[in-house]
Structures are given as C-alpha cells and as structure tokens.
C-alpha cells in the first residue's frame, strides 16, 4: 500500500514551490513599498531643506519674511512641551498599567476599563484638543500655556503607553514574580524591584511611539490657541510658547516659494529632535533588556 502518491506529489510540486516563492516576493514588496516611500520623502525633504539649515535659521524667531525667518522659538517651545508631556504621561500611564495588571481584581469593571483605554487610543487628536481647551485652558485658567498643552498631549498619548506597559508587565515571567513573593517580598517590593525593571524595555517602546506622535501633533495645539508669532521663549510652564509642528504648518500655507524650503528645513529639525529623543529611549531600553 502506498501512503503517498508520488506522482500526485510530483505533479503539484512545481506549482506549490512557485506559490511559495511568489508569497515571499509579495511580502518583500510590501516591505519595500513602505521603505521606498519613506526614503523618498526623507531624501526629498533633506534636499529641499539642507541649504536653509543655517545658524541664523536655528537662532532667529519666526517671521513672514522668508530671508529672516527662523525656528528658534519653536524648537525651545517644543522642548518645553515635551518636558511636561513626557513625565506626566509616563507616570500616569505606568501607574495605570501597574494598577490594572498587578492590583486590580480581575472582574468585569477592570475589563471594561481596559477595553475603554484601548478605545481612547483611537480618539482623534482634535477631540483631545477640545477637551484641553475646556478643562485646562478655560476651567483651570491655565491659558494657552506649556502646562495646558503638555497636559492635553499627555492625556492624548496615555492610552498608547498604558497598552504597551500592560503588555510588557504581563510578559514578565510568573516564576520571577512568585520567586520574589516566596522570598518574603511585599507587593510593592516585587513591583518596584522585579516587575518594573523587567518590563521597562516594553514600556519604553510604547513611550517612543507615543512621544513621537505627541511632538508632531498640530491639531490639539491649534484648538488650544498656541500662537505662531511670539518673539519670546517661555520662562515657566505657565507661559505660552511656539511649537515646531505649528510653525511648519504655517509655513506650508505661505504663498512665497522660499517658505517651502523653510518648511523642509523645519521638518529636518523636527526629525532630528525625534531621533534624539528616541535614541535616549533606546539607550535606556538596551540597558535594561539584558536582565532576563
């Protein structure tokens, strides 16, 4: 008796192999489409903007005269903004994730909260802008300050970090946790010395994604009423500020052609700050990821 019909196999073999190959090619194509578009965009932007990346551009304030326009105020403003958004978002989100994963009872209420946090991640950013306008700008009279905008963006990116942090905490092996408790450690000791350090790489990945989104976000800032012409930098978190994406958006709309090159130069600066922020995060991630 023959278990495998060799003729049958031989007949369909070439077709199967071809299909196998073509699938591999298809997936490669998918990867390439994204990469090629990205590289084209970056190359195009760098070519347009490179010549305009001068010291004067970096050290002067915005202007409606293309020859004297700079990005100083926007760079400083965006850094101030991130200095508020990052710590607030990270502390709130990691706190939330720890509570949901480690402390909260596994019941319908917790489940309901978890599901809704994921839903929040899909809310359009302009809605968070309106929320910020109502609560932080008007209700708490923070005005269009760094604080108001920073808290708004922190709320906006919170869901992304919470979900990433939950996944990371869940992925910490149960055995490690049990060992810690078995040694007589309290819940807090287990969380702070075992779980958090082990989960940090995953949490940082979420933080990178979230902060990258926050620094490039324009819509909530427009709603909050962040100014575009402001010839001073903030002295405290309660002062108003300029932001990179708003500056870039404003330049795109200008009729003079030179502003298109300034836009490209502004985008390069935004990308550089993004890379800088991310490399710090990746450094922290690599430092911790060797633990297990």
């Amino acid at each position: 008796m023959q278990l495998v019909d060799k003729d049958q196999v031989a007949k369909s073999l070439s077709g199967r192999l071809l299909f196998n190959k073509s699938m591999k090619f298809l997936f490669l194509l998918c990867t390439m489409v994204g990469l090629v578009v990205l590289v084209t965009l970056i190359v195009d932007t760098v070519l347009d903007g490179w010549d305009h990346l001068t010291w004067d551009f970096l050290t002067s304030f915005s202007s409606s005269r293309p020859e004297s326009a700079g990005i100083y105020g926007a760079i400083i403003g965006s850094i101030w903004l991130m200095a508020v958004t990052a710590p607030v978002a990270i502390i709130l989100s990691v706190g939330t994730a720890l509570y949901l994963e480690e402390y909260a009872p596994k019941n319908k209420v917790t489940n309901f909260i978890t599901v809704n946090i994921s839903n929040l991640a899909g809310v359009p950013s302009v809605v968070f802008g309106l929320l910020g306008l109502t609560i932080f700008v008007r209700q708490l009279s923070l005005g269009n300050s760094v604080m108001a905008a920073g808290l708004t963006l922190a709320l906006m990116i919170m869901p992304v970090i919470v979900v990433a942090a939950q996944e990371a905490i869940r992925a910490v092996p149960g055995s490690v946790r049990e060992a810690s408790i078995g040694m007589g450690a309290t819940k807090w000791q287990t969380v702070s010395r075992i779980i958090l350090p082990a989960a940090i790489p995953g949490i940082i990945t979420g933080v990178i994604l979230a902060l990258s989104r926050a620094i490039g976000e324009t819509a909530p800032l427009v709603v909050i009423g962040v100014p575009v012409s402001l010839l001073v930098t903030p002295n405290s978190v309660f002062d108003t500020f300029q932001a990179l994406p708003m500056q870039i958006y404003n330049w795109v709309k200008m009729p003079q052609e030179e502003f298109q090159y300034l836009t490209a130069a502004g985008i390069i600066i935004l990308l550089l700050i993004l890379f800088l922020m991310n490399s710090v995060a990746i450094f922290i991630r690599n430092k911790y990821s060797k633990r297990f």
Partner: protein
Amino acid sequence: MKKSMFLSALLMGVMFILAACGGNASDPTGGEGESGEASGATDGSIIGDGSSTVFPIMEIINEEFNAEHGMAAEIGVSGTGAGFERFTAGETDFQNASRDIKEEEVSALEEAGIEYTEFLVGTDGLTVAVSQENDFVDSLTFDELYTIYSGEAESWSDVREDFPDEPITAYGPDQSHGTHDFFKEEVMNDEDVQAELIQDTNQVVSSVSSDSNSIGFFGYSFYLNNQDTLKAVPVEGPDSQEAIEPTDETVQSYEYPLSRPLYVYAKNESLENNEDFRTFMEFTLENAAMAAQETGYVALPEEDYQEQIDQLP
C-alpha cells in the same frame, strides 16, 4: 543605583503634579471669572488671534514693533471664526479677520459685554486664475463664474459659446478658508461651491498651473508669487460694465469686484487700559501699508490709515 533612579523619577512626578496643582490652586484667588481676564489684559501683554490671511501682515508688524519697542504681541492663526470665539471669551485683545464680522458674532460680543473698534489694515483681491497656457479665457462675469462653480458647466463651451469644447476642472480652497466663504457669498449667492476643494492653497495653485483647462481662485498674494505660471482672469461684477483685472490700483479702489477688506478688531477696554496695546495698534496702523505690500496684499490709501490713527482713544 537603580533605587535612586526610581526615586528621582518618582520625585519628578510628584514635582510635576504639585506644579500642576499649584497652578490650579492659585487661580481661584487671581482669576475670579472676568476680573481675572481683565487684569491679565492690563499687565502689558498683547494677545491676538484670528485669520491666517491677515496673519503675515501682523507678523511683520510684530517683528518691527519688537525691534523698535523691545516687546512683542502673541499672535495665533486659529482662523477668523475660531478667533472670534476667543475674542468673545475675552482671551484676546485683537482679532484678525479676512471678512466682515457676522451678525451672530456681533450679538455674541454684545452679550459678553465686549466693545470693539474695527480697523482696516489692507485689502486683498480674490484672484480667479487659469494656467498661463490657457489662451481662450480673457474675462469672466459673475454669472459665468457661478456656472463653473455650481457644477453646471461640464465643458468650457457650456460657460460661453465661443469657448472650446474642453472639459473644465474647477479648483478652490476648502471651507476652512475665509477666501472660500468670501467667494461663496459674493459669487455663489451663498450656495455651495461644487469644485475640487483643497485645504492647502499652494496645491490649488499647482493644480491650476499644470492643467490648461482648469480654473481656480485664491488670495492675491498667491497670484503675485506665481505670475510665471498663472494668468489672472479679469472679472466683471454684477454692477460693472467691463471686466477688471486685479492690480494694486483696481484692488485698492475696489474697482475690482472681488476686492475684500482685511480687518483687525481691537478690544476697546484694552485700548483704554493697556498703554502697550494702544502703542501697538498705533504702530500697526502706521506700518500696515508697508507690511501689506511686503506680504502680497494691497495697502489702503495713505490718508485712510491716518484717519484711523486719529480714531484711537
């Protein structure tokens, strides 16, 4: 090592939360509703918002003001409509507008008890343009523009009989622009504009330049900056007998039927109580002609600015 890192992270968090609470806690004492706004407006800060069309004029004035007086205003670009909302809420001292103030905005301001003065800083000529390569369109009337932008005309021969039978593509800036509202009101009798509406006006310009059968409209400055690829179409208004081309002269005199005023609305209370803001508005009117020309708009006649300066309290 690790412990200290966590501690410092925790400390930072507590500090930020405290800072946030501190801000909130100090507000009820200093910011009891309107009195807080009023005191905010008299401490020397100058805050403006509104139209992105007027913004370049005000930004140049702001730079010059900063160079001369060592202080500057804070100016946003949330758009004419959203800007009026902030103006009504008492958050801004002046409001830039690329159109007349609407009835409901007047009544909202009245209700809020905010008195204002209207100033003119310049004039824009909404320009209807075709590609440089288009050789048949030499003028259009309001009625013909209506035919194009109501979607009735599918080819140029539907617009006027001696035009060729070529398909027509109409472009324009989308509803977020005051330019769109102005066109809709003046030409379309407030009916919806049926065209390819684009958010970025530069895209409208490039679409029109690259297609000889297309037509588009935008602010005068966009035409000035793209004269090598665009051809402005002379427009005949409902009351005029001949088609007028947009030029500095015809826009300034409002002979060109799609001329529109650019406004700055100033809050009277701030003009009276905030010496810096009064200086700023005076400086604005003194320099508006220069700023308008430099940014691609048309200045008012010299004496109109002087008249407005005399109006200042």
